[in-house]
């Protein structure tokens, strides 16, 4: 029983689960091993509305609420973390900022193709020397007539190797400090736009995470999102929403690990009984189930608050922190339950364990989230 779910949300779960089990489950292991981005699945997901979940229908989206969104991300991630990452980053921090801060012309220009999955979006903030401290970015966009000349070196860009429409965080006024940061939409194919080699990562390996460099790249002035100087506000707004998606992703991975832990502990026999009969293993299952349940309630609450148009920043930060830590802990326990087999690539918990680890790092580390939460809880004093 989950008080945040309606029958519509259950239908979303049924439908997305059926799709992912049919299309992604048979290839998830190979995608991880080969670090391959499954364009053939992306095309089908696009037709089903997965790339424009909350985009209004008149721009080609599914027009759904945030709870539907987290259910969908949870279900994709339950089968393949790397594709859950692709879909959540695309929806939350590429499409959402264009919907929230873009003009109608900009929305009509970029959103229909993004919502249909014909083009993939990316959020390019991190640089070699600027991560948690986003105000330290060095990318620059200088006005030259009605264009910006952009020079940027962005790293660890999720979807980078596949992305067509990239939100680039740049300094439009290098003297203005944090108030001189803006967001410019750069499109693949623009002269000077270079997607670097794919990163060889520990987990989420099917996602084409790469660097993106812009070398004297001339971008039309009307590709500026919002206005100059509000880049950090756009970033923070995107991350508030993005956190819910990453939390849902961590939740999906944790759910998968829980299911595998239950299945294996009932099947594996040691000392003449299924290992689930041993109290130490049963206790692990109890802890895993409890933590996954708590994470789910927190994630759905954050999404429900957003749907009610209530403040959700603290709740989404708490949900992301807790779900990410839960994913790490639960996948670790699932490996432990599997013993030596859990350390082998023959069993999926090994992949879940690697995929879960990064949820504590990206879109704000657990440590940054604790800072955000503490600030909100303590208030001014």
């Amino acid at each position: 029983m989950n008080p945040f779910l309606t029958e519509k949300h259950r239908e979303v779960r049924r439908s997305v689960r059926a799709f992912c089990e049919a299309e992604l489950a048979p290839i998830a292991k190979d995608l991880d091993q080969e670090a391959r981005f499954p364009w053939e699945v992306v095309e089908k997901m696009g037709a089903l509305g997965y790339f424009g979940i909350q985009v209004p229908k008149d721009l080609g989206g599914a027009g759904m609420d945030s709870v539907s969104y987290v259910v969908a991300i949870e279900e994709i991630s339950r089968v393949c973390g790397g594709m859950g990452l692709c879909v959540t980053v695309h929806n939350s921090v590429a499409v959402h900022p264009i919907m929230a801060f873009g003009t109608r012309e900009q929305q009509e220009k970029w959103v229909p193709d993004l919502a249909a999955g014909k083009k993939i979006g990316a959020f390019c903030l991190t640089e070699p020397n600027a991560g948690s401290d986003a105000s330290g970015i060095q990318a620059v966009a200088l006005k030259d007539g009605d264009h910006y000349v952009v020079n940027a070196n962005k790293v660890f860009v999720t979807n980078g190797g596949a992305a067509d429409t990239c939100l680039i965080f740049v300094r439009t006024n290098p003297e203005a400090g944090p108030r001189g940061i803006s967001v410019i939409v750069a499109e693949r194919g623009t002269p000077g736009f270079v997607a670097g080699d794919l990163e060889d990562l520990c987990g989420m390996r099917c996602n084409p995470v790469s660097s993106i460099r812009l070398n004297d790249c001339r971008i039309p002035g009307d590709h500026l999102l919002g206005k100059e100087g509000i880049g950090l506000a756009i970033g923070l707004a995107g991350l508030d929403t993005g956190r819910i998606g990453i939390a849902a992703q961590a939740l999906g991975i944790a759910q998968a690990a829980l299911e595998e832990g239950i299945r294996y502990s009932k099947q594996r026999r040691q000392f003449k009984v299924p290992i689930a009969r041993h109290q130490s293993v049963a206790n692990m299952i109890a802890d895993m189930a409890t933590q996954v349940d708590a994470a789910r309630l927190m994630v759905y609450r954050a999404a429900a608050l957003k749907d009610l148009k209530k403040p959700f920043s603290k709740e989404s930060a708490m949900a992301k922190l807790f779900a990410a830590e839960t994913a790490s802990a639960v996948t670790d326990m699932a490996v432990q339950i599997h013993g030596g087999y859990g350390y082998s690539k023959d069993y999926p918990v090994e992949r879940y364990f690697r995929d879960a680890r990064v949820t504590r790092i990206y879109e704000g580390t657990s440590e940054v989230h604790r800072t955000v939460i503490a600030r909100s809880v303590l208030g001014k004093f």
Partner: protein
Amino acid sequence: MGIHIIVCIKSVVLDAPGGKIVRTPDTTALNPFDLPALETALALRDESGGTVTALSMGPEISGLSLYSALSMGVDRGVLLCDKALAGADTLATSNALCAGLKLLEPYDLVLFGTRTADSDTGQVGPQTAVGAGLPLAAQAREILVKGKSLEVSAECDGFRQRFEVDTPCALTVAPEAAKARNASLGGIEEAFSGEIEVWSLEKLGLTPDQVGDAGSPTKIKDMTPAAKGKQCDFLTGSIEEQADKLLEKLVNAGLIQ
């Protein structure tokens, strides 16, 4: 105007925890054997234009299966729901469906799955066709619209048959006929933004003695789980001998040829 196709669907019970049937959203689902019929109807509509109506009978919770059908792209959902309908056997179910079909006229085609996942009689489709006075072809795999008639391919006893059937007619659709589409997220949003129609016995123009438990000539007296015959044979001998014995057993059991 296009073709009007009615698909009769059932909300089936997937699980009975503790041996007791309690219908909840988690224990019920759209009958998987109805999915090929729905897909066939949607594909025919997409090709020829027209509308698809899904018709079901059951308690209020069965409406969820109609929403699943609407999410796939069905245009209209109708649930026959009345306390008097409870406890129906297959004949009483067919009586109610026939009355529903009458109210949905005119139609060209009525589709059924071949069976259900929870009671598996396979009777409701053919019985309803008889009750509604419709010609029936069973186990349809391919359907071509040819003016006022259909060309239907079916497979039976190792033979592939082709029928020509005049419309309006009824077909049961083989599970192999089509792989059902996934509901798109936009389709789900649209389905749940609308509503299904709920028809009472009065609307159907039937009396309580024609339907439900009262209208059922067959009654289930009791139900107990069937004993599963499980036998474990240990094969002995060398590895080669064991492999030969295993092979022989599998061939004798008809599992391999």
